[in-house]
């Protein structure tokens, strides 16, 4: 299942890992490639992870790591048009998503899974009142065209908006970024989805408003058992709300870990390096100390080094790392793609 190399241990996770029930979403060996005149280029290679029922899972990665593309593929937003080809295995609630006909996938979107994007203002219609936009979602979810307003107001109230009648009669530009993001979440919730995918939902927001939105997401998980797949570049956001964390690097899953194991038990050198390089609050070190930076830069897709993509920046790299790409090896609910961490020589 891995393009290069083969691990001695299972490259495929055991069925039904940590939780007994099968996960709501299981992604295996996801690959997204771009056909170009000069040949095929892989933007995402070998992405695998699970999202359990009632769990918040964070996909953490830098720009170009393929995190947004991966969740868009799950949502079925990449489609078959254009130059992108999606292959691999996406099991959602017992169904193989990539094998579904376009109409079936459309039925899935917005009903069983819904998505919230980074820029709420760019994703709301600027010339339509907010209430009418939410109403469209409600009407589609309930398959009827009348009497949507009570449910619209209920949804707006549910996401913590004050003065919901006024909000419903406002245009997006009359609301703040945080309020617009709440409106987006309300729209996503209209059909009571099983999985909410949120792509950097707080990156455009101020930190005090970010805290409110993260709090809202946690409440939806706790109160309604919703599963949430959250994409972020900010490890501290993941640490604050996720049950498990998927670390992506240069188009692949580098590590999958429980959040509680992230600190102290991170296994991939990239994860470790990232955690070490971030300044910490309230430390005595401060100005007199240097941060432990990861050297080098993130490789461009199409210019990946041979072997493990992180090996040129890795201080633990051994010869094999620059020759063969390590497979993602699972043990229990966690996984790591690293020759050194997996003890292979």
């Amino acid at each position, binding site marked *: 299942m891995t393009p290069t190399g083969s691990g001695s241990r299972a490259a495929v996770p055991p069925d039904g890992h940590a939780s007994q029930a099968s996960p709501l979403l299981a992604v295996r060996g996801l690959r997204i490639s771009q056909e170009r005149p000069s040949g095929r280029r892989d933007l995402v290679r070998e992405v695998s992870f699970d999202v359990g029922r009632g769990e918040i899972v964070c996909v953490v990665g*830098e*720009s170009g790591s393929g995190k947004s593309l991966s969740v868009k593929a799950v949502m079925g937003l990449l489609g078959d048009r254009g130059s992108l080809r999606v292959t691999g295995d996406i099991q959602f609630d017992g169904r193989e998503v990539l094998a579904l006909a376009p109409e079936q996938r459309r039925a899935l979107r917005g009903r069983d899974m819904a998505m919230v994007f980074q820029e709420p203002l760019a994703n709301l219609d600027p010339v339509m009142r907010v209430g009418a936009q939410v109403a469209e979602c409600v009407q589609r979810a309930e398959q009827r065209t009348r009497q949507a307003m009570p449910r619209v107001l209920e949804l707006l109230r549910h996401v913590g908006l*004050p003065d919901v009648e006024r909000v419903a009669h406002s245009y997006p530009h009359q609301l*703040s970024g*945080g*309020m617009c993001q709440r409106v987006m979440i309300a729209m996503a919730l209209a059909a009571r989805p099983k999985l909410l995918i949120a792509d950097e939902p707080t990156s455009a927001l*101020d*930190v*005090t*408003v*970010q*805290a*409110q939105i*993260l*709090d809202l997401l*946690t409440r939806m998980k706790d109160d309604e058992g919703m599963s949430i797949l959250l994409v972020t*570049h*900010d*490890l*501290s*956001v993941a*640490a*604050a*709300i996720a049950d498990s964390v998927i670390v992506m690097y240069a188009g692949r899953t580098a590590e999958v870990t429980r959040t*509680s194991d*992230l*600190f*102290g038990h991170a296994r991939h050198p*990239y994860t470790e*390096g*990232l*955690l070490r*390089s*971030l*300044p*910490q*609050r*309230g*430390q*005595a*070190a*401060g*100005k007199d100390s*240097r*941060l*432990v*930076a*990861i*050297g080098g*830069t*993130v490789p461009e897709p199409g210019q990946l080094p041979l072997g493990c993509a992180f090996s040129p*920046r890795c201080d633990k790299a051994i010869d094999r790392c620059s020759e063969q790409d390590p497979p993602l090896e699972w043990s229990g609910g966690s996984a790591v793609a690293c020759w050194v961490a997996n003890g292979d020589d």
Partner: protein
Amino acid sequence: MTDPRGRHGPDVLAGTQQTPVLEAEDVVRHFTSRTLTGRGIEKSVVRAVDGVSLSVGKGETLGIVGESGCGKTTLALIVLGLLRPSAGRVLIDGVDLAAVRGAQRRSLRPRVQAVFQDPYSSLDPRMRVGSAITEVVAHHHRSWDRARVRARTAELIEMVGLDGSKADAYPAQLSGGQRQRIGIAKAFATDPDLIVADEPVSALDVSVQAQIINLLMDLQAENGVSYLVIGHGLAAMEHICDRVGVLYLGKLVELGPARVVLSEPRHHYTAALADSAPALAADGRRQLSVLTGEPASARAVPSGCRFRTRCAAAQTRCAEQEPPLAELAPGHFAACFYPKAGVARTVEQARLAPNG
């Protein structure tokens, strides 16, 4: 009330008695905006910066934190001389920016340089990055011959940790971190006394941010340059700044030693800001959301204390009077009638063991 610029406290902390590199005295900048409404064109005044006083000592790093719309970028533009204040004075090395003209003003300009958030949009895409630096060096040192200008350019590129061959690259051929290094080399090309850095790392890849933070701090240790850093990442600000000022709706609500302000805040807004930032630690789980609502608009600043509309500790007095920026501990100022309890310590302790 003690001097709100904090001349006594911070200067003692910075260990200097020299003229500050930057002094801002009661700087105000209002914008008039016209909005088309159903009732016609309505004029409103945006109080972007509404009376800010601060100073930056030699070799010191002062950080300004605050949410979007608090006026931090307007303040940076005023310090850079790119915007005129509506009122108040900005002194660079003791000289009032607005009071000088011509040659004197031109001589003041190179002493303050900027590092911008997005190095891609602040470099000319069709100019080799080496030429972009050469241009600044040649303009600053008119008497230098080409060989000397070229040598200085190479020195600057090496100083920011780049290979000399990168001088021939176009911005698009460099990574974000490399471009920001070029931006920093350009800023240092005029041997400035003060560099204003507006979110210098927030557009960069997370794994590269630490490299740039280290570079900025190394360059300061070598050159003794002062920084005015605008940012919102509290952990990074705590790491690089000597002192931090917290801006809310155009006014400083707290100012003091970075670690004290961010880990033992006295103003309720600073406390909320610090608690809202998710902590990167194993025990990071806690109630995140501590503030309800969002900042009031700079078009309609609340009476009295401008934070009172979101403050859990607000009393009636807060709506009636505006609390002054008062020195609550040596070098630590907060504008609050009912500040949070502080930890008693002397100036010496504050300098040596900010968390002890």
